[in-house]
């Protein structure tokens, strides 16, 4: 793609966007990892990292993704980015199926969607000056060297770093916050529509974290971006997200607008997560441990509802039948038998629409 | 455990096949063939061609390879171009002679290496260690065949206490006079294993000593000797692996030392074969030495897995 085309495609794509079609559509995404072991590689089992995950991301929103470590958030991100191959499921971007014969190719997908990783230092090639790292993607997509470097410097400016000071520096000469800004600039170099932020601010000091978060908000407005924001920090997610998706052991357990989720969480796991948040308010003390037991083994997850081994409301039906992600009137969806009338759960009939 | 051993053995088969193929290819790339060497050049072409047909040299190459491989399996290593005797007898006799110097050299090299390495490790950063480091670098840079020559120059030429060449006996030595023939070659051969082993042992022991459990052992009140025993036990696996490999190198690489001392071992045999363009002897020797090396590698892997459970995959 020539330089001018690269610049222009962003505008064309936005112009052609139908608001009704979600920007990213994930259907039945599944990824199991084989566990090495046993003679002649007879699998010791499968880690069900991501199991039948479906969700949409609307253009212009920020979708927060939360959950404990090992719940599949990062794997999902890598699957969407096509960094690892999925076992099954469909991924569509702006209505076009990725990997299908007449759909979107991987390479084209990467022009539309980029990712920022958690480890700011490991994300940058230690042997290259940061401007070159930023310019790499446009350069290989056809932009000439000079034009790519020029774009790199514009992006440095955009993320709040003076190009004169930083363009020729090496990653080890910069602080964590500066490096993460570089990573953000690098993600923006191809003018993507969607940026996945995988624990992008988790490793930063709190004050720096706040600065970078604000930068992200500004950039989103300025470049008309859509975000998927993965984090384990519920406060940060609340600050930045429009909708929130909660994952547990490879499955989506709840999804909905941020205020509804935080105000009245529908899934017991979400409730437990939120009550575990430390609070500055002395009136909100944690009296009981919100969750009991250990997270189950991802190789052999519990039958039926995966959360039932730690759920205070678990019943027979939870063991027998896995709950599906079903809509909660007007505001997202939840996967819990308690919220579905007629599911067989004793509390099901008390489900109240919010 | 047996599964692991079996897997390693099965895995060695394609490697050995590959080795045999490589040797076979080399033989066929050699200028001239059997017939050219056996008969004088004035012989008319038809006779030479009929000889080729008799030796099956006109058949497609993979058939020749398979036939050759088949003969190897039953122990027929061919006939020497030069002596006309079966290669197998000469080869195994020569191998025995090599073992007579290789085994003592390995023992000497390893034991001295372990002692030196341990001494250096326990006296870290003292002048002893510095001497050790200097010696180690020198040892690795010395051509061992040259050291052999220098030793001969000192002990045979100048002082005339040890014989300069030759084996002086058949089979095993039975008198001090005969043993004298062994001394210089064994010492020369032992240099490289000693150097390599001492370096590794030193590095391993240092690494283990820096680990916390050693402090725990001391705190439990174990005597220094018991701690040493535990340390050595931990250093053993990789040291054993290295020693196995070094022994393999000794067997395969003894040719240089055997040339210096005119020792009639497998190396000396190879030397003669090269000189006489005796391809069957040369190729058989190379093949057998490589096969022994592969077997040693397997043994080393199995031994390592036996001692260190982490190695069992």
């Amino acid at each position, binding site marked *: 793609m020539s330089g001018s085309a690269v610049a222009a495609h962003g505008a064309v794509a936005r112009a052609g966007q139908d608001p009704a079609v979600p920007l990213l559509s994930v259907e039945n995404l599944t990824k199991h990892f084989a566990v090495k072991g046993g003679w002649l590689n007879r699998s010791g089992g499968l880690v069900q990292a991501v199991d039948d995950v479906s969700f949409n991301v609307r253009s212009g929103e920020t979708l927060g993704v939360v959950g404990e470590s090992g719940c599949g958030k990062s794997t999902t991100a890598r699957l969407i980015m096509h960094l690892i191959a999925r076992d099954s499921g469909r991924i569509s971007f702006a209505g076009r199926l990725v990997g299908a014969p007449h759909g979107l190719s991987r390479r084209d997908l990467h*022009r539309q969607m980029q990712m920022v990783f958690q480890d700011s230092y490991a994300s940058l090639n230690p042997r*290259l000056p940061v401007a070159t790292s930023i310019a790499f993607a446009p350069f290989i997509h056809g932009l000439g060297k000079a034009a790519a470097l020029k774009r790199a410097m514009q992006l440095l400016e955009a993320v709040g770093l003076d190009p004169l000071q930083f363009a020729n520096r090496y990653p080890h000469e910069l602080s964590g916050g500066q490096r993460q800004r570089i990573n953000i600039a690098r993600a923006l170099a191809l003018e993507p529509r969607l940026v996945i932020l995988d624990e992008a601010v988790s490793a930063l000091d709190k004050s720096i974290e706040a600065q970078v978060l604000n930068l992200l908000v500004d950039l989103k407005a300025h470049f008309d971006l859509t975000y998927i924001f993965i984090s384990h920090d519920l406060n940060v997610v609340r600050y930045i997200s429009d909708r929130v998706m909660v994952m547990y052991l490879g499955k989506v357990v709840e999804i909905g607008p941020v205020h509804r989720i935080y105000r009245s969480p529908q899934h017991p796991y979400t409730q437990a997560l939120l009550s575990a948040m430390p609070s500055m308010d002395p009136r909100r003390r944690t009296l009981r441990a919100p969750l009991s037991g250990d997270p189950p083994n991802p190789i052999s997850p519990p039958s039926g509802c995966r959360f039932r081994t730690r759920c205070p409301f678990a019943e027979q039906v939870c063991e027998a039948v896995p709950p599906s992600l079903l809509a909660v009137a007007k505001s997202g969806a939840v996967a819990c038998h308690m919220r579905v009338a007629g599911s067989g759960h004793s509390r099901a009939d008390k489900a109240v629409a919010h | 455990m047996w599964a692991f051993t079996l897997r390693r053995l099965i895995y060695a088969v394609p490697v050995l096949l590959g080795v045999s193929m490589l040797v076979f290819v080399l033989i066929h790339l050699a200028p001239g063939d059997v017939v050219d060497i056996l008969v004088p050049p004035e012989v008319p072409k038809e006779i030479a061609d009929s000889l080729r047909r008799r030796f099956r040299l006109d058949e497609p190459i993979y058939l020749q390879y398979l036939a050759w491989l088949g003969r190897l399996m039953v122990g027929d290593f061919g006939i020497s171009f030069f002596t006309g005797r079966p290669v197998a007898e000469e080869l195994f006799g020569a191998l025995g002679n090599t073992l007579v110097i290789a085994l003592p050299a390995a023992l000497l090299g390893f034991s001295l290496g372990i002692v030196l390495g341990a001494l250096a490790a326990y006296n870290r950063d003292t002048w002893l260690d510095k001497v050790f480091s200097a010696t180690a670098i020198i040892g690795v840079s010395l051509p061992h065949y040259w050291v052999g020559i220098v030793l001969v120059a000192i002990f045979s030429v100048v002082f005339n206490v040890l014989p300069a060449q030759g084996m002086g006996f058949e089979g095993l030595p039975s008198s001090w006079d005969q043993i004298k023939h062994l001394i210089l070659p064994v010492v020369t051969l032992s240099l490289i294993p000693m150097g390599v082993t001492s370096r590794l042992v030193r590095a391993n022991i240092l690494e283990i000593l820096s680990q916390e459990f050693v402090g725990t052992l001391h705190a439990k009140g174990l005597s220094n000797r018991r701690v040493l025993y535990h340390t050595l036990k931990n250093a053993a696996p990789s040291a054993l692996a290295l020693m196995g490999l070094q022994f393999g190198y000794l067997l395969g690489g003894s040719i240089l030392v055997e040339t210096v001392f005119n020792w009639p071992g497998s190396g000396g045999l190879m030397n003669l074969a090269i000189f006489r363009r005796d391809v069957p002897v040369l190729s058989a020797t190379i093949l057998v030495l490589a096969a022994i090396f592969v077997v040693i*590698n397997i043994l080393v892997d199995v031994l390592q897995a036996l001692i260190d459970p982490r190695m069992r995959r």
Partner: protein
Amino acid sequence: MADAAVLPADANLVLNRAQQGKSYWRRVWERLLDDKLTLAVMAVLALLLVMVVFAPWFTVHDPYTGSVLRRLKPVGTLGHWLGTDEVGRDLWSRMVYGGRMSLLAGVVPVFLALLVGGFLGILAGYMGGLVNSAIMRLTDVLYAFPSILLAIAITGILGSGLQNTILALTISFIPPIIRISESVTAQTRHLDFVEAARASGARPLTIMRYHILNNVLGPILVYATSLISICIILAAGLSFLGLGVTPPSAEWGLMLNNLRQALWVSPLVAALPGVMIFITSMCFNLMSDGLRQAMDVRL
């Protein structure tokens, strides 16, 4: 957002004015400059190189003509300060000219093996899967030979001479270089910046060129220089066996063999070529150690 008027149109101009950072290689270089021992060793090697390349300037006698009358003169003889060899040729000249062959046979194979083995190893390490298996299994077959045996096999069967020697040694050194290249590449491949490069849609060869190569080159180079010292010893060893450079060429290993008979007459002269092998090999060893330490930069 950047005001277009503030940024100069020429990006390179800005880059030139931008503050220079200290690249990794620059810091390695600076550490090397502090290492007096390594610098000294490199100076010795440079001197050696100059001497063998400009051999006629440093020697008086022709290395190929000898006189039976002047056979095996000892060290310190007038006119032949290192004595003469068994055919009467000046030993000093033979050593200097011999250095050409010895160094050639010692350095070129490692260089070639670096090119071939490095490429294959990086390819195997990056691509993984079938490509990796195929390359590594091939390496295993070559590894089944103790190194000198492989070189002997090739030269012994194919014939002696400088070309075959270089070929044989190159093949002997390709497996270890493949092994270390593959190992280092496999480690680098999992780092996030490589994932990020993949995420930007770059093709494998491009990623290997811009992101892998500059990160793995260091360790591979250090290893290769340590191999040079071994190669010099092996090359001389091959000549010693009659498998390497052929007479009447001068080469240190060959000289060592020829002078063996002279051991009884003039032991010092007979041992001299070995000293050169030893010194050269040790210099490369020390240089390799120095490089390794310089590259061990804490980031």
